[in-house]
């Protein structure tokens, strides 16, 4: 794997923690940038607490599975940025870097003396991406988020669920994933702009605000037509439209039926398939796949309008058939004739049973010194000339401190040792990992 990559030669100072920021820099790393993750064990959040340490393994700073997947392709420098000496060292690092990225609360970097005004003194064309909960601008900039809070405040939670029930919302921090995407997108956009103009800038990304543009058609329905989402039949579950409510578009494409999830054999927790028929022709194909049952020939099911009007009955009939087939078999039968059916897939399904993801090399293994060899998620795009790939498991905490301090910044071994003794590179009272003792020899 010695092919050139898109971001070869780009260095990122990565102050990010928890999930959204690290998800951003993970991708910059896969694209070839050198990611230097600044960490401090006393305030670290992302490695601990861990709920993804393998059974039987000690939970410590180096054994979180989710941290590993989220932090591949990075180097770790342990550094007490809150000390004068640590701050001077990080400034030296920034002076030879292209991008600074962080996802702290809005004024943290400023308080450290690393606000944009200071960063440009160190590196005039620096691209600075701040990824805070509410952004650095606006009256609520001090408010804090986790994914679910950003999703609630931005309108995303409301769009998920069944009518007349509480919001089902998103079953994970979608805005950690998506906030991370925007962090990486902003960094790349800022970098391109810098390469073209020679000018850096501060890009103020907000996790909560980034969720709002994902509700575009719903927002325009309100600002243009005056129709809000607090209405009968909304959100319509997996359907395009909920029966016995006024026909309106519900912001997931065309208003059609069938458009739902159906149980499949053998009836387990994730044994479901979704089927969507966009046209009457699609419907006729589905009817054939179902074996052309007599009920489906009834005139009322022959048109989109009729199927929408008799959706409950139709869905029950479809499910009586779907429940007799496994979800992959149903998918294959439908897709063979051009019917849009796909299985509900758990994580296990995706990793073990999805032939497409397997073919595309979605989950390739990487060795990690503490966790062992495990599958890691790969990029969903193939760049023909500069492929993105995971080249290294997540770093052990402080694994690259010597490499960076001596190799990149030019300090001596004596200075490195002194920094470990005075609490610059590791808390003085905290036991060191064996690999740290090795790097001090």
């Amino acid at each position, binding site marked *: 794997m010695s092919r050139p*990559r898109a971001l070869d030669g780009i260095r990122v100072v990565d102050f990010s923690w928890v999930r959204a920021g690290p998800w951003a820099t993970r991708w910059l790393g896969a694209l070839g940038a050198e990611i230097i993750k600044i960490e401090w064990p006393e305030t670290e959040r992302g490695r601990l607490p861990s709920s993804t340490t393998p059974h039987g393994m000690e939970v410590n700073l180096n054994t979180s599975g989710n941290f590993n997947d989220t932090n591949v392709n990075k180097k770790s420098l342990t550094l007490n940025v809150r000390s004068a000496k640590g701050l001077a060292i990080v400034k030296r690092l920034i002076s030879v870097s292209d991008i600074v990225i962080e996802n702290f609360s809005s004024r943290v970097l400023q308080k450290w003396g690393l606000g944009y005004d200071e960063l440009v003194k160190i590196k005039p064309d620096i691209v600075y991406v701040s990824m805070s909960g509410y952004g650095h601008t606006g009256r609520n900039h001090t408010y804090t988020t986790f994914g679910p809070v950003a999703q609630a405040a931005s309108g995303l939670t409301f769009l998920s669920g069944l009518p007349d029930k509480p919001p089902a919302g998103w079953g994970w921090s979608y805005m950690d994933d998506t906030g991370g995407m925007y962090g990486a997108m902003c960094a790349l956009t800022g970098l391109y702009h810098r390469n073209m103009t020679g000018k850096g800038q501060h890009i103020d990304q907000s996790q909560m605000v980034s969720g709002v543009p994902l509700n575009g058609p719903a927002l325009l329905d*309100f600002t243009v037509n005056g129709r809000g989402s607090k209405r009968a039949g909304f959100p319509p579950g997996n359907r395009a439209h909920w029966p016995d409510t006024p026909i309106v578009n519900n912001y997931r494409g065309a208003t059609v039926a069938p458009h739902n999830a159906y149980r499949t054999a053998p009836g387990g927790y994730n044994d479901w398939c979704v089927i969507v028929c966009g046209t009457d022709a699609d419907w006729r194909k589905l009817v054939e796949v179902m074996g052309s049952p007599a009920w489906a020939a009834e005139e009322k099911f022959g048109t989109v309008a009729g199927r929408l009007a008799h959706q409950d009955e139709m869905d029950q009939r479809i499910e009586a058939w779907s429940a007799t087939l496994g979800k992959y078999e149903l998918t294959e039968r439908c897709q063979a004739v051009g019917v849009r059916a796909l299985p509900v897939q758990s994580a296990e399904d995706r990793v073990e049973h999805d032939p497409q993801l397997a073919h595309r090399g979605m989950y390739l293994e990487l060795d990690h010194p503490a966790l062992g060899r495990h599958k890691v998620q790969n990029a969903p795009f193939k760049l023909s000339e500069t492929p993105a790939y995971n080249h290294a498991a997540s770093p052990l905490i402080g694994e690259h401190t010597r490499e960076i301090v001596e190799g990149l910044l030019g300090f001596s071994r004596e200075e490195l040792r002194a920094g470990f003794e005075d609490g610059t590179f590791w808390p003085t009272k905290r036991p060191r990992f064996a690999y740290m003792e090795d790097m001090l020899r």
Partner: protein
Amino acid sequence: MSDAQHVPGPLAGLRVLELADDKGQFCGKLFGDLGADVVKIEPPGGEATRRVGPFLDDIPHPDRSLAFWYYNTSKRGITLDIGTAAGRGLFKRLADEADIVLETRAPGTLASLGLDYESLSGGKPGLIVCSLTPFGQTGPWRDYLSSDLGHMAAGGEMASCGYNEADVPGAPPIAPGGGNAWHMGGHFAYMAIMAALVSRTVTGRGQYIDCSIHEACALTTESAIANYVYRGETLIRQTGRHHAPAEGPRTQFLAKDGRYVCALVAGRLNPKYVLELADLLDASGYSHDLREAKYQDAKVIADATAHIIDGIVAGFIASRPAEEIYHAAQERGFTWASVRAPEDLLADEHLRDRGFWKEVHHPELGRSFVYPGEAAIYNGSPWRISRRAPLVGEHNVEILCGELGLSRGELSVLSESGVI
């Protein structure tokens, strides 16, 4: 702020050809709003996405789809049937002037028309072509048909979203609405294209990008893959909160005004947090027993989790409107929020402070409408909606005659022969 009107966006100078339906129009918008000149190429009569509602005043028309309006801001539009020889010729000429071609046709379609990356980049090594398709260009599912719902199923979103059995017995897995499969695919495609552009600033060379929406969705379930890979866990769906290996305390509570509040309390309860919670409740005049000395013991708190969450927190939230709870809690450092419907966001003062809402003029209607704005403020090169979505064929004359040099007569012939 008049100066800001003249500062170009970060992608100024880039030309993008967009040959995209619902799968790729959002990605094109990301480029257009950041300053690229995006030329949308639609079939004669307009792209199928123009037929998707809601519509202006609920009157269906290719120029009145609000979904189309939203996803096609800051683009120019022409019509062109690339299935015809004349259409292909014009497409190639346009590609010669472009930096990026973004396309969402079924795998093999452009190759069959002689418009694939190899054909287009022959005389233009800097060209970047991105195919954004449901399953990518290779593999056993390459030709499968999808939908937003289908991607939410196969990508793993639905397996994580839904209800606790006690809340909604027999509930199906739920696919969150809003067309997010296309957002997920669009974000990754944007990232890949930008990486190729950065690379091009160094090497001068473009490349081909094969981006899969299925993979983008499969990547967007936070820890679900890690839970399985490292612990063999399959997660259950929970009402309004995270998937988990086993049922955990709720985080969504009904407020006095019928809205919900997302209050993350479980997992944070300790003596200090209990006192902070007591301060919040006192400030709102809500009575409680959290000042009792016994709560300064972690074991007592753990045993009283249900009392604190389902009794006190739920009771407090039920006693006040959701927005009041949200701001009172956040001002005291609690990471809570009200669950807003999209229309509630128009009243959000923080968004207004950020200049988030944009007035977009529709000259043909003589009206302006409010559109959502940017995810991030680019302080040195502003994001902006440069124009409303194009009408069908709006820029045929401007681009085909003005830029490619066709005469009006030639344009008429193309129209009469169904090419544009």
